């Protein structure tokens, strides 16, 4: 990769920000984000991750982007999965095992329904986007 100049870096930030705001990378408008810190992985995040992929493939969904992130801080409810999609509030689910992962795809993403007993509170506001 070529070394960035100041202008390159600024351009890159702007473009990526736009992409994030539209929550649309390569026509994928649904994001499923899995917490994959050491603690999440220890609690079974990798199982949840593959169960999500299986369920998404099974349903033939092409507009879902699954990605990893670090620790969301909700250690008591690991593994955690956040779902961000149009027409639904952004939701963090906790204690996501393979069965819950399947439910997230079938009920939340396809059925537009929230799932009982698994929702966690968002820990705090985002200082980057909300000052």
């Amino acid at each position, binding site marked *: 990769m070529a070394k960035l100049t100041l202008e390159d870096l600024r351009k890159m930030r702007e473009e*990526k920000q736009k992409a994030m705001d539209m929550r649309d990378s390569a026509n994928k408008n649904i994001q499923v984000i899995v917490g994959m810190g*050491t603690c999440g992985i220890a609690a079974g995040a990798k199982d949840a991750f593959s169960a999500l992929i299986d369920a998404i493939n099974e349903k033939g969904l092409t507009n879902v982007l699954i990605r990893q*992130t670090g620790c969301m801080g909700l250690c008591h409810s690991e593994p955690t999965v956040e779902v961000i999609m149009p027409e639904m509030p952004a939701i963090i689910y906790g204690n996501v095992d393979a069965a819950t992962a399947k439910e997230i795809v079938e009920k939340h993403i396809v059925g537009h329904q929230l799932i009982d007993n698994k929702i966690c509170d968002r820990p705090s506001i985002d200082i980057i986007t909300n000052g």
Partner: protein
Amino acid sequence: MAFESYVLVCGGTACVSGGGDSVVETFKKELEAAGLAEKVQVVVTGCLGFCEQGPLVKILPQGTFYVQVKAEDVKEIVAEHLIKGRVVSRLCYDPDQAKKLVADANIPFYQKQYRVVLRNCGVIDPEKIEDYIARDGYKALEKVLFEMTPEQVVEEMLKSGLRGRGGAGFPTGMKWKFAQQQPKGQKYMVCNADEGDPGAYMDRSTLEGDPHSILEAMTIAGFAIGASKGYIYIRAEYPLAIQRLEIAIKQARDLGLLGEKILGSDFDFDIELRFGAGAFVCGEETALLQSIEGNRGMPKPRPPFPAVKGLWGRPTVINNVETLANIPVIINKGAEWFSKIGTETSKGTKVFALTGKVNNSGLIEVPMGTTLREIIFDIGGGIRGGHEFKAAQTGGPSGGIIPPQFLDTPIDYENLAKIGSIMGSGGLIVMDETDCVVDIAKFYLDFTVDESCGKCSPCRIGGRKLLNYLNKITDGRGVEDDIKQLEAISDAMCKASLCGLGQTAANPVKSTLRYFMDEYMAHIKDKKCPAGKCTKLISYVIEAEKCKGCTLCARKCPVNAITGTVKNPHVIDQSKCIKCGQCIASCKFGAISVK
């Protein structure tokens, strides 16, 4: 088809026992009656914290947060909020705040946490530099390289009031200033990621979730003090953090954000990793530098301070991970913004690893000045299994134990020191009445004795002596004079040890003596452990009236100390019992108790 609104009812234990179930049922009934069953979904959630304010209801997408909701209130919430879109302010946690924030759908009404250090953790993909860049990443570096002088950067740090998050709380700007003032030449910037405190994992989570923030901060620090080389000293026990740092360093080098002439400026800076190898004393600056140099991690007397004479004899600044993670935000948003968060003397936020006997253990970040009660009960959801809060421990093996009378003390560096503890790196361990404070003091001493490097005798011998006395007391051989000995040795270690490890190793003993003398006395005079933890001072007894004679405990007992016939009360042979506790765990009738 999507719902228009969602009613989230907390399903945590406290909320359910406070009537949460009937709130759920009433919502379903009222929504049905109002013809909204198709438009509003009622969902039960996991514990939302704030257990003392339960039952809790949250309405999405607005994020309105109602507390102490009773079945009788539901009708009003449906009629006012869900039909007319008006907030029922009498049920809000803070009615004033309710009015202000109602317009913004994204901001929940009331939150104790405030994430500066953890701003990107759980948001970005830590293995993608573009994700970091999109969230103002490397923007602070731009500003520093092209709009500021090194002196201005140091000035900004001093103004922000940021203090070291590794434990002692030394002002970061001062450290930078000392190093900056040294004559030009090779200087080093070191990140201390040797998180050795047992029960703390803040730094690991930050490195795993947001590695670029540390690289950016180190580069800024390097620019400020005039260093071209940085080292991250990280525990070898953190393989995932190491892997993500390696990826991040490579990405930054590829894009020219590390290396020569960063972003086309005249500034060169590069970072290498160095692995720790499991020595707690290496959290001490001088010992850490010894370890990077490839030696045994033995501390050196200060002065000279590392800022004057550090790595390979050159001026060196050592900052901890959490301290560094604050720096890009301070540059971007300004020292003034940062210094508005926190208390008079302690600015910004603090990350805690909240663990132990608390319901919602987790990694939390709160403004300095938050009270223990808010952390443990509002965020942590209270004590597990309906037990009583007995004490909290901060600062790990160098810290102290905080009893219930200080639950409402605002936490900052000064207040913690006043009550006999320290901020430490951020482990916050909650204890209930089944934890014995003498045993806890013994646990920490056992740790520091094991980790003492042995260079100076107050720490090497004093620690061992303290541990011996504690063992004597928990074994039931203690005498009253032992307390005096504990106090005298503690004082001597504090005053005479070479480094921070020895100077603070007696803190767990000192603070437990200060607040829990009666518990020490119970061990010494009555030969009893009130918490039922010290095995030599307790016995397991089967209550004949409760025992059904199911034989399960006798089968579980690893040393065959339990005898009895089917359907008749069993008996434990105290001479054989090893107090492993398996019988208590197996008994279905609660017939076995600790005496």
